[in-house]
């Protein structure tokens, strides 16, 4: 009896050690490539550093500058305008990337035969790099020689005037992003219990009713995951406006990430860039927590 007890203890300890060992590689990478940079970024936000010379501790100066409490307010204005542009992108692109892939996934799920073909077709853009996507759409959007305007005999200034520049970015980003979320939805859809759907159909529920009352509630967790990931990736928008519109016209599509990038790598103000990314991170966390709370509110009932 006693022997088996100690053996149990030993196996338990061994289990703990071995499970820890499985985590070690991840932990090492996490510490090296996430935790240390994060701590450095947090500290650099209170410093001045041009990337080459000595790092100087300047306290809250970067933040004062970004809130317009120092200087002329020009850098503060440019930064908050860029944050607003990012928020605009998030506010419109996130719903698009939640609803459109869901609709596509539903159609593909229903359509048994051609389903695989459409799944491939819709997923294809997701495997392209942002530069490729932008080059493809650049030839579509060009005002005077572009494919879209020629096809429809229009003269729409897709990339040079607002609101078209934003519309172009939304079209491109949606085309690019549908595939990834669609796959997640398809996985969720195949997990919706068939018997529930059959029971609903027997009770006389139409397709719309069973979508609202059975399918969507059953896919709640997939949807929360998609919402979180899409919101975070929309906040990080960079490549599309950088390549397609270069932040124009009149800096109207200059997003926060571009401002941060240019501050660090064009302007060599790494401390200020860290302060900017910290502020953006705070906004992102606030956004994510709020939307998570709203989504999971029903779960507590």
């Amino acid at each position, binding site marked *: 009896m006693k022997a088996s007890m100690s053996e149990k203890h030993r196996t338990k300890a061994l289990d703990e050690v071995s499970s820890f060992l499985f985590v070690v590689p991840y932990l090492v990478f996490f510490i090296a490539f996430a935790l*240390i940079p994060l701590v*450095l970024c947090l*500290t*650099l936000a209170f*410093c001045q*550093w*041009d*990337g*080459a*010379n*000595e*790092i*100087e*501790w300047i306290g809250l*100066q970067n933040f004062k*500058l970004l809130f317009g409490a*120092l*200087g*002329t*307010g*020009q*850098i*503060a204005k*440019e930064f908050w305008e860029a944050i607003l542009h990012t928020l605009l992108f998030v506010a419109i692109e996130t719903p698009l990337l939640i609803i459109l892939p869901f609709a596509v996934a539903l159609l593909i799920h229903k359509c048994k035969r051609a389903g695989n073909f459409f799944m491939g077709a819709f997923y294809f853009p997701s495997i392209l790099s942002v530069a490729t996507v932008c080059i493809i759409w*650049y030839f579509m*959007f*060009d*005002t*005077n*020689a572009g494919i879209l305007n020629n096809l429809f005999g229009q*003269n729409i*200034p*897709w*990339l*040079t*005037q607002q609101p078209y520049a934003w519309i172009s970015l939304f079209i491109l980003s949606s085309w690019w992003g549908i595939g990834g979320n669609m796959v997640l939805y398809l996985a969720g859809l195949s997990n919706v219990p068939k018997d529930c759907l059959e029971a609903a159909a027997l009770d006389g529920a139409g397709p719309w009713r069973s979508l609202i009352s059975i399918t969507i509630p059953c896919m709640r967790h997939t949807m929360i995951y998609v919402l979180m990931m899409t919101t975070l990736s929309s906040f990080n928008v960079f490549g599309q406006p950088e390549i397609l*519109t*270069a932040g*124009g*016209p*009149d*800096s109207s599509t200059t997003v926060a990430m571009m401002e941060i990038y240019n501050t*660090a*790598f*064009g*302007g*060599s*103000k790494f401390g200020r860039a860290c302060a900017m990314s910290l502020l953006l991170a705070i906004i992102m966390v606030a956004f994510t927590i709020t939307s998570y709370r709203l989504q999971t509110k029903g779960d507590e009932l």
Partner: protein
Amino acid sequence: MMKKIVSMILSAALLAPCIAFSACNNGPVDPNQEEEGEITLRFWNGFTGMDGDLMDRIVSDFNEEYAGEIRIVTDKMDWDTLFTKLTTTKSNLNTAPHIVAMSNQRLAGVVDQELLLPIDDLPDYLGVSESDYIAAAWNAGVIDGTRYSFPLDVHPTAMFYNKDLISEEELPETWEEFVEVCVAKTDLDAGVYGFAVPSMYSITKDIFASILLQNGGSILDDENKAVYNSQEGIDALQFLTDLVYTQKVSPENVGAGGDYTLFMADRSVFYFDGPWLLNTFGLIENWDTSKIGVAPMPGATGENGVSFSGSHQLTLMKNTVTSERVKEACYTFIQYLQVNSIEWAYAGQVPAYLPTLESEEYLAIDALQPFTETALKARLGETDYKYFYEGYNYMGVAVSNAISGKYTAKEALDNAVRSFSNWVIDNEY
């Protein structure tokens, strides 16, 4: 005290990866410190186009000639990456470059970061003086009385034209003639325009800067305040805007690259760009048979001709070029580039070295002559100011805002000047 400790910890943390990686190499920190043997020099540049292939050829010829003594290892990357990596690799003697090519517009910013080695003795080493070089390019390397860079080339903007749409006799030499020709050639029914003026940040700002100089204005004044919103500047921008909205020789809303697309589709007579396009168009080999020709920009040549241009400069890095022996190896390479600068001409660049420009071989390259004429009269702007590049970019936004019809020329330029001067104040914090 606290500040000092935090700074030290941070510096240590940021340098740790560099040191760790150097340690992995198991070699001496800087092999070039040895007294004898082959010196390896890293040469960084942003010549990622066809010019880069030719630079590679020059380098490999050099390596062959100096085998056993000096070996150049080239690293090509886009310019923005180059300037970022310059600062971040500065302390890593196994990866940091020795020789870096850069635009004269970025030079003062890099000097301000204290990355460059003063090279005041280079002209004596090469046995050259100002009279051997295009003056603007020669002087661009001197900041506050110290020479930090040595000129490689000048790359002005010139006027490409479609020979199917215009004959050589009809080419304009002044902007007034340019408007007349454009009006005459624009045929809206056929969808053909005189010149598509891009409204996005692009070559338009270089054209604007050239007209500004031709009008007698300047980009910055003696105290480095932006003054491109002068009457000369407003007139220059109004002129470009009128091409779109008054004379209608350009379509509206030409995006970045839209001018090139229309030109290649035979839908615009003129197209402005730098000499690097000569190879893209195959003009150096097929000058007579190509349907594309090139001429100087209006107002850029002749007695009072002037235009805005850029110049590639060669610099040495302070942290890696630490001994006389390494410095001399760098100078040897720069001398080789000077002596063989005709090779660089074939890359579609105007060498800054005058004896090359006067050589028979160079004069036989027809396609480069319009650029050469322009380069001899070019000005490079007040690039000894560390924020010139940023000021020039604010100016670009103004040009784009006026041409897209968002603001009048005066509003756009006033906004840019105000934003830039405020930005300079803020950026000093």
